[in-house]
């Protein structure tokens, strides 16, 4: 594992013990769900995204590592605040415990509120509504302008690492916001377009015509 490469964006995930932070990251990085041991201190993953390298830091939720979380947050460009959709206390911790930790992160750090374990959520007995989550997400990101929220949605996701729901979408939201790809880069690195758009090509036409 080479960690000497310079990361273009540091993403950190915070949240109470056993809300599923490591599972969420493993689902995104490795594409599978597996039982996780509790994280010791912190863990680290590298993810290339387009031309960029992204460092994803997984922290330990255990209270005794609180001091370290603060340290690992330093110079983070984005923070994922994870809570268990089924346990309201984990949602409360987000602003009670982790809000202050994020002071160490970059000033323009994007905060994403993420509810986990949506696969075992019972809608009828649900305590934390999606509306509350969205509200917290917007409160945490005061400089996110209204127009962007309307276009891309609020930085709030309800995910399931087990069923792979909303996990990739959530990470793409972060990267697209923090390291926007130009359309040209998007084509080159994402490369999912199988058809050729003739009209798009023709925009280059006038430049070429100047031959004789």
């Amino acid at each position, binding site marked *: 594992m080479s960690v000497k490469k310079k990361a273009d964006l*540091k993403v950190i995930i915070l949240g109470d013990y056993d809300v599923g932070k490591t599972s969420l990251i493993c689902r995104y990085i490795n594409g599978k769900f597996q039982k996780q041991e509790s994280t*010791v*201190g*912190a863990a*680290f993953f590298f993810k290339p995204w387009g031309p960029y390298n992204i460092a994803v830091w997984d922290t330990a939720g255990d209270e005794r590592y609180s*001091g370290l979380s*603060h*340290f690992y947050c330093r110079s983070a460009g984005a923070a994922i605040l994870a809570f268990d959709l089924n346990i309201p206390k984990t949602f409360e911790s987000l602003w009670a415990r982790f809000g202050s930790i994020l002071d160490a992160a970059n000033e323009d750090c994007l905060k994403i509120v993420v509810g986990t374990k949506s696969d075992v959520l019972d809608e009828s007995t649900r305590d934390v509504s999606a509306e509350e989550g969205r509200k917290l997400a917007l409160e945490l990101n005061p400089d996110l302008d209204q127009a962007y929220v309307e276009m891309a949605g609020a930085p709030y996701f309800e995910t399931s690492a087990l069923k792979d729901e909303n996990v990739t979408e959530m990470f793409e939201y972060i990267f697209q916001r923090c390291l926007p790809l130009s359309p040209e880069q998007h084509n080159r690195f994402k490369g999912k377009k199988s058809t050729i758009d003739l009209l798009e090509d023709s925009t280059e036409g006038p430049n070429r015509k100047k031959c004789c």
Partner: protein
Amino acid sequence: MSVKAFELVPVIERVKLMSDKAKTQIECLDVCGKNVYIGTSDCFVVHYSIEERLQPNGRVTFAAEKQGHKYLVVKKPVVQLRAASALNRIMVLCDTTLTLLNMFDLEPIVTGAKVKNVVCFCINENPVRTNPFSVEICVALKRKSIQLYTVTEDRMMHLRDVTIPEQAVTVGVDGVTVCAALNSQYCMVNMDSSHITDLFPIDDNVQPIIKRISKEEFLLSGPSALGIFATSAGVSQRPPMQWSDGLTAVSFVHPYIVALNDEFITVHSILDQQQKQAIPFMSGVYIGDFDGRIFVASGREIYSLVPIPFEKQIQALLADKRVQEALDLAKNANKTGMSRDKFVKMFKRIQQQAAFIEFSEKNFDEAGQLFKESAIDVREIISLYPNYLPASVNFIRSVPPLHEIADINQLSRSDEAAREAFKAFLKEFLEDIRGTSLAYGYKLEVDVALLKLYAESWPDKLSELLSDDPGCDLGDCIVWLERHGRFHALGQLYQHHGESEKALAVWTRLMDSNVDDPSFPGLEFIVLFLASLTNHELLWKYVDWVLEKDEELGVKIFTERPANEPQSERLRPETVVDYLHRFPRAVITYLEYLIFQRRLEKEKYHTHLAVLYLEAVIKLMDTNGTKKEELDIARSKLRHMLQMSNLYRVQLILGKAKEKEMHAECAILYGKLEEHDKALRILVHKLKDFGAAENYCQVNSRGKDPAACKRLYHILLSVYLDPTYERRDTLVAPAMALLNNADAEFDNVKVLQLLPESWSVGLLAQFLTRAVRTSMHESRMTRIERMMARGENLQVKQTFIEMQRDCIVMGEDRACAVCNRAFNDPTFVRYPNGVITHVHCAKNKYICPVSGKLFSAGKR
């Protein structure tokens, strides 16, 4: 966990101290070259010199000799001690005072170079100033501040200081950044800007440790026995490391972090943050790395941690089949100062060993990848498969061996599925590398192994291999192919080696016997092979055999010969035709080939073919119940031949055709004899095919002058209008059609004479109009032509006159432009541009001999 990265070797077994009291203990030490300095708990500094020796068995031992000692009088332990060899000084911290001692006689330097109230100090290994005769140190003071000093032989010059919120317990320094452990937390202090960055809190039960591991990176001891990396900027770039509890000191030699606690020395790799080795070591008090060497001290003894050579560590990992770890370690070995070439060689060898381990574990993807990356000698792999190397190749596996595998039988332990898996791997690997640089020089080995594999399990691939320039020799391949019943492939192998006779023997045996080889394409294959065979003697041996089996296919031996084949006596058309007499269908095909394709113009062949066609037709006519289509086809073939060729003997055919009343054929034959009247009478009277009659005129007038053409049409018309023919009224309509046909040409005067008096003008109006118009048109065209010719004539005359008008005066002084001599004859040549020469000097009347100008004939 079983990597043995280090070995513990005693250096100084029992430190001989000044006062031999039991409580005297080592507190700290420094090693500088051969000098070891020890600070004790009872205020002594002891100096040893050590000698490192490499024993013949590869072990390292140390011999130590005491050089001297010094009592520092204050009865307090020596807390820290560092040698500064550039200054010939040692820095000693004792009783909160930092002082300098002479490195050799240990006498104090009394120039006032000391700092008081010091908690701890450390040397800046990445100093801001680069004076080689000074050392930069960082000092933590009791009164909540940190200072930087430059130390010279006899002075300590204060550079800067920064006030910190609490007293520092221990410090590390790199450049202008000081990493300090305060009572409650770690922080990074920028000595330039005095900016303090808090890192993380220190638990009460953890001893703070700061170890600089590289430029701008420190390793700190964190809560819950974590080792945490932090850069000068206060962030972490590596995940933390799980350490043991109660660590007292840490040192680092790439890529290992060595940590000391009360019972163990533990070794972690910085590459994957995992623990690699644990060495039991009771009551350790100090560990340090000095110029890449690690020394560790207990209360009274000093040991060295001697690194086990990389290769040994790697071999140990490989022996445990821990391939990935071994490769990771090997990749990092180039950081140990090995030369590039040596490293590449070593790394490739390790990759190969790893590859064979993966291979024996049946991890074929990894094995194949490693084999390719390490550019393995492909024979090493093939030699694992019994009998797969060509018998002619004498290969000895590399020494020392890359693996302990005898062969795949040993690996598969007579498990058939496993054997097949190994074979499938070899097949895919060889196919993969075939033609790449890996197979370079081993084409024979690779192709023979592939041939044998294919013969055993993938017969359908044999033909592809054999047609693609295989490097297989004959040797044991023949036996192998025969044993597996791949006879067609055997034939192909012979063919590739130019052994056509043996190849044919194999194939004919395959045809004649009932041996089933599904890959054999059958007789056609043999025929095509014979068709391109250059050895004509051999060819004749098999022609009989083939023709007996299939005439029409067999004749292809002669008709499908390569275009650029040189003519040979044995394959002359006469010889072949003579030979083919026995095979009527073959001879027709062959003659057709000679006439229509090779366009041979020999009367004999043309007549022969025509007769054969005719015979075929007659035979069909004579047999009852012949289908009309069949007969039509045969006759049209004959007619085509008769029409197309001019070389056959017409009379011969005509006789037979007349006999059988084959009118259409007769018509063509009369045409060939220029007896158009007879031909046309047959067409009109017998066959009543007026279209064919007109077509006859058209065909026979092709390429002839207009008069002959007119004559032909006239003959046809006179046949139509023949007053002696009793049913001539039926021919009025075709006659009119002919007259009105735009293609037909007539001599109009003769037509008018021929036409019966009784025909009305109305009937003939169309023809007459056309005739008059044509006549008028011709007349006018002729006049135009005449006038144009006259005009041209005038123009030529004018030019001629213009050219002659200028007079040329010839005198004695006039010389030829070419030879420059005088003119003796009255004749001379004048070029249009005025150049005058002798007649014999004018070589070319179109090119001026002086200027080279070209005069074209028509240009005026």
